[in-house]
């Protein structure tokens, strides 16, 4: 028990938590925007893979880090365009399209990797984003190093979460997006285009998912590996449910999951790790997430028109 307490009060632990949380925050906000507009985007896992690869490849090819992030975002948006074209105007099953996009995006990425780097045995490295401590704020004990001594991409993640909440609840655009997820007929009756709102939400949301993927290759690590996204996309879908489709709660969920994940790595190195198989620790964050999901999502208010295609003039 003392060992766990030691871990929980250490600044390095919380620094790791925030680092693990950052990609989840981007992708969770992306998924949340899609779902609030009424579209479940199961392409998230594949789009994160695309983002991870595209950002890293762009930098490796000589672009700067921020242009690399932009390339990642644009490539995610391209897959968002594909997803939303099939699910919104054509009204196809969001499950089938989403899984298809994930398979296509993942396979296309690995294929492109092989084409671009036919002869390498280990992937080349890039110079990733480096920590940029925020003046003054980073000197607060524990919180300072954890929250304000991260890479600029993490700060962007904070901003994205705050901006998502602002737009959804304070602006006419956010109201229109939420209404598209609640009752598209109401949006139509008020003279707005459901197709434009939903496609826009999916394209923007997919761009954010890709930036979440890019965080892995451009900030957390400095290279691209197969299987690197490793189910993070699916976790983000669960986090949106956990957060009851609210940005604040979803961000809290991301923090919680990241804390479990960081904790299990450290627990493997304690005395406990000699008696318990390491797979149990690996399982821990997922098991706890499922538990939290069951508790939290009892009375969550699902967007009423989530996964319901809207056909104008249907009868």
């Amino acid at each position, binding site marked *: 028990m003392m060992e766990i307490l030691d871990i929980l009060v250490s600044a390095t632990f919380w620094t790791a938590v925030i680092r693990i949380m950052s990609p989840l925050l981007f992708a969770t906000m992306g998924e949340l925007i899609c779902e609030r507009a009424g579209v479940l985007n199961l392409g998230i896992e594949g789009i994160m893979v695309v983002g991870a690869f595209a950002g890293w490849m762009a930098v490796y090819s000589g672009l700067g880090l921020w242009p690399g992030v932009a390339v990642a975002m644009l490539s995610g948006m391209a897959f968002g365009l594909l997803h939303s074209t099939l699910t919104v105007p054509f009204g196809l099953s969001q499950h089938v399209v989403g899984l298809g996009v994930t398979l296509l995006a993942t396979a296309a990425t690995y294929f492109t990797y092989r084409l671009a780097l036919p002869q390498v045995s280990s992937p080349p490295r890039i110079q990733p984003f480096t920590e940029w401590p925020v003046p003054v704020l980073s000197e607060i004990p524990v919180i300072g190093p954890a929250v304000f001594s991260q890479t600029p991409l993490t700060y962007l993640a904070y901003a994205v979460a705050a901006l998502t909440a602002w737009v959804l609840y304070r602006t006419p655009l956010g109201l229109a997006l939420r209404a598209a997820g*609640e009752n598209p*007929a*109401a949006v139509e009756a008020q*003279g*707005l285009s459901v197709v434009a709102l939903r496609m826009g939400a999916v394209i923007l949301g997919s761009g954010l998912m890709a930036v979440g993927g890019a965080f892995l290759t451009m900030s957390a690590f400095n290279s691209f590996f197969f299987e690197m996204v490793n189910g993070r996309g699916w976790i983000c879908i669960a986090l949106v449910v956990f957060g009851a489709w609210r940005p604040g709660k979803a961000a809290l969920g991301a923090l919680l999951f990241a804390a479990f994940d960081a904790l299990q790595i450290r627990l493997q190195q304690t005395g406990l790790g000699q008696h318990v198989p390491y797979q149990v620790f690996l399982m821990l964050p997922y098991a706890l997430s499922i538990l939290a999901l069951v508790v939290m999502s009892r009375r969550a208010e699902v*967007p009423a028109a989530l996964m319901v295609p809207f056909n104008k*003039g249907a009868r």
Partner: protein
Amino acid sequence: MTAGAGARPVVLRVAEVTRRFGDLLANDAITFDLHQGEVVALLGENGAGKTTLMNILFGHYTADAGTVEVFGRPLPPGQPRAALEAGVGMVHQHFTLAENLTVLENIVLGTESLWRPLARQAAARARVERLSRDFGLAVHPDARVGALSVGERQRVEILKALYRDARILILDEPTAVLTPQEAEALFATLRAMVAQGLSVIFISHKMHEVLAISNRVLVLRHGRLVGERATAETGAQELARLMVGADIALPEPRAHSPGAVLLRLSGVKTEPRGRTAGLRGLDLALRAGQITGLAGVSGNGQAALAAVIAGLDAPVEGTLEIAGQVPAAWSPRAAIHAGIGRIPEDRHAEGTIADFTLTENAMLERMAEPPFARAGLIDWAAARRFAERVIADYDVRCPGPDAPIRLLSGGNMQKLILGRALEFGPRIILANQPVRGLDIGAVAYVQRRLIAARDAGAAILLISEDLDEIQAMSDVIHVISEGRLSPPFARGEKTAHELGQWMAGHGFEGADAA
């Protein structure tokens, strides 16, 4: 033409509007004018093309041919936004509100530029409050729409249109869901709007309302405009003839002496489910040879009561007796075996499976037992014979027993459900909204069959939101409000107005004090 109406400027001109859905000619070259400050009623049966016409005006559908002019300018087809900007507002039959958003959010949706960094809440709220005061549309701007009553939701819909400066308001079957008192309040609002120079198109199939509120009546039948009358110069009989094309009289059941109690509920309580009320200690007796009418605004416990009787739900407290005995177990199957025939509220959601054939739908309730199943196998020949018998005996117009039921009109679908329920000679019939959405010929048919079943000794519970229907059909009437049941009233004992008071929750023990 009424005096004055012709002198006022034309605000809306519909010319030769035509629209087809497949083989169905929903609107056939319809032409009419709407003047400033008048209420025009659009009268017609379900399926006559009223809603299609209004959806074309509002841009939800595009017309195959014809034009619409608003204030002298042609309206581009297929764009609700253009209709809104031209000053046309529409209150749909099925409200277009987002339940998880507040009243204010629903009203301002789409009225501001989407790219504003901050919504103008305070100004919007002040404007909504002023409009509610001016037109008598009381509703709290911050209430979640999901928590509002049906009458309040309708006010939100009207406010939505007024907020956008609508000069022409289209109301599609606005009174279908209201108590008589709420309908009166709506009429007062409409009169206030007309007095301020707005124009109203009022769609309805209820004659007395049309006569009460309109200046002019247009009658649609099978997609065609078959008559135009000044309200002052016409009457219910003439309009009914125009609407139906022939004289169809609804059946008037003769008094009938009731027999023994076949189903009795004593002190039944159930849990509320979502927005619909649960039952709060309810006593009810259904007698043989009697139609018991249940009046009330939807969502007041009708669904819970129907679920208990149909075996979908067991009471939390209290007892249910069938012919004096408490059944050992209560399930839909037990209910069917106890001789309860069911006509479910929603024939699409609960009554049928759209892509199944008529044969499959006909046997659905008894698919695992004789005569339809033997030794665990379905006897398709027997099922088909049964379906053919129902189709013939109940005049179900259809391509045949092997056609999917979704091809049928509402009336024919309902006849199949009715036949399926009545063919096994039920002792108790649960008829939940049996004629909603049917044309008058089908209404008369279904009602005649129910009366015949009553005369043959069945105990019938008739649940309906249409007070006229309840009053015409029932031997005894209960009103349900928030899960409580009024005492039984004999036929003709209470006026519609008095029943409306009960529907609004007045008269129940302790309710007035609260």
